[in-house]
C-alpha cells in the first residue's frame, strides 16, 4: 500500500487530544489514584491498597445496585428499541405530517433531565397529578413514594417517554435513506410486510440501530437525575441505581476512596458491555464492517 502520509494531520488531532486528556483521561487517572487511598479532605491521603475494591466486591449494597441497574437497562432496551422501530415504521415519509411528527418526537429530547423528573413527580401525585389522581379515581392504589413496584413503573414510563423518541428519530433517518428500488423489487416479488421489514428495512437500519442500542444502554446504565428527582432512590433503596449510590457514597458520606473504587468497577462494566453490544451488532448479518475499521 503506497498511500501518501502527512503528519500534519496530527496537529489537527492535537486540540481534541488535549481536550479529551483534560476532560476524561486526567480525571480517570485521578480516580484510580483515589481508589487506593483514603482521605479526610485537606488534600491528605493515606494508603489503603486494595481494601476498597475488596470491600466493594463483597458489598451487598453494590451487588443490589448493580442488579437493579442491569434489570433497569434490560427493561429499557426491551421496551424502547422495538417501540422505537414500530413508531418509526409507522411515521409518514411524505407530506405535511412529516415535520409535525418530527417535532413531536424531538420535544421530549429537548427537556432537561431534572425537569423531566419534576414533571413526572407532579404527574404521578395522587392529590394534584393527572396520572396519580386519575388512577386514584379508578380505584388503583398507586403511590410511587411508598410502593417499590409503582416507583419502578413510574421510572420506566418516564424513561420510555423521554428517550424512545431518540430511537424513533435514529430509525426513521435510517428508513428514509433506503432507496425506493428495494421496495419496488419487494413488491414485484410479492413480499409480505414482515419480509420487507426482515430482509430490507432491518438490515438497512441496523447500523443506526447499533447507535441507538449503545446510546440507550449507556444512558440507562448511567441514569441518575430523573430517578433522583422522582424518588430520591426510594422507597427504601429500591430505585437506587449505581450512579445514585455512587453520589450518596462520594458526596453524602464523603467516602472518596470507596466511591473511586466503585467508579472504576462501574466504568469497567460499562466498557465491557458496550464492547459486547458493539461487537455483536457490527458482526450481525452479512453487512460486515470493512477490514480497515
Amino acid at each position, binding site marked *: *500500500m503506497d498511500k501518501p502520509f502527512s503528519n500534519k494531520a496530527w496537529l489537527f488531532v492535537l486540540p481534541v487530544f488535549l481536550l479529551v486528556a483534560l476532560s476524561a483521561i*486526567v480525571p480517570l*487517572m*485521578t480516580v*484510580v*489514584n*483515589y481508589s*487506593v*487511598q483514603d*482521605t479526610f479532605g485537606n*488534600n491528605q*491521603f493515606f*494508603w489503603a*491498597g*486494595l481494601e476498597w*475494591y*475488596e470491600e466493594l*466486591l*463483597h458489598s451487598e449494597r453494590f451487588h443490589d445496585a448493580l442488579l437493579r441497574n442491569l434489570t433497569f437497562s434490560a427493561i429499557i432496551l426491551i421496551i424502547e428499541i422495538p417501540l422505537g422501530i414500530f413508531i418509526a415504521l409507522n411515521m409518514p415519509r411524505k407530506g405535511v405530517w412529516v415535520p409535525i411528527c418530527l417535532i413531536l418526537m424531538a420535544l421530549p429530547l429537548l427537556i432537561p433531565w431534572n425537569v423531566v423528573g419534576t414533571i413526572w413527580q407532579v404527574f404521578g401525585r395522587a392529590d394534584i397529578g393527572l396520572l396519580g389522581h386519575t388512577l386514584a379515581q379508578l380505584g388503583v392504589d398507586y403511590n410511587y413514594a411508598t410502593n417499590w413496584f409503582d416507583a419502578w413503573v413510574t421510572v420506566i414510563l418516564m424513561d420510555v417517554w423521554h428517550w424512545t423518541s431518540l430511537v424513533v428519530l435514529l430509525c426513521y433517518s435510517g428508513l428514509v435513506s433506503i432507496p425506493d428500488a428495494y421496495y419496488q423489487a419487494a413488491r414485484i416479488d410479492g413480499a409480505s410486510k414482515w419480509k420487507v421489514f426482515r430482509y430490507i428495512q432491518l438490515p438497512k437500519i441496523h447500523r443506526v440501530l447499533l447507535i441507538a442500542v449503545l446510546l440507550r444502554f449507556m444512558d440507562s446504565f448511567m441514569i441518575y437525575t430523573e430517578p433522583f428527582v422522582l424518588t430520591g432512590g426510594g422507597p427504601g433503596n429500591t430505585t437506587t441505581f449505581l450512579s445514585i449510590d455512587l453520589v450518596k457514597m462520594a458526596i453524602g458520606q464523603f467516602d472518596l476512596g470507596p466511591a473511586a473504587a466503585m467508579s472504576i*468497577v462501574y466504568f*469497567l462494566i460499562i*466498557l*465491557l458491555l458496550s*464492547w459486547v453490544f458493539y*461487537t455483536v451488532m457490527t*458482526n450481525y448479518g452479512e453487512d*460486515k*464492517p470493512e*477490514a*480497515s*475499521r
Partner: protein
Amino acid sequence: MNLSWMAWTTPTAIFFITIVSLLLLMSLWEAIKPGGGPRVGILRIETTRGDRLFLSLLGSAFIHLAWLGLVGPNLWWALGVSVFYALLVFRFV
C-alpha cells in the same frame, strides 16, 4: 507543576507508566508493520492488534477483580494469569 491534587502514589504511577509504555510499543509495532494486522480469530470477528490489546487489558482488569473477590488480595497470581490470557488473546483472537 503541582500535581498533588491528583493524589499520585508509586504503584498507580507504575501502573500508568506500564499502560503508556504498552501504547508506545504498539505504536512502534504499527510503524514497523503498518495496517494493524487484521485477522479473524476464534471469536469469529475481525480484530486488529489494537483490538487485541484492548481485549487483553479489559480481560486482565476483570481477572484481577475476580481474583480479588474470589481468592484474595495477593494479585501476583492474577497478574500471571492475565499475562497468559493476553498471550492467548494475541495468538488466537
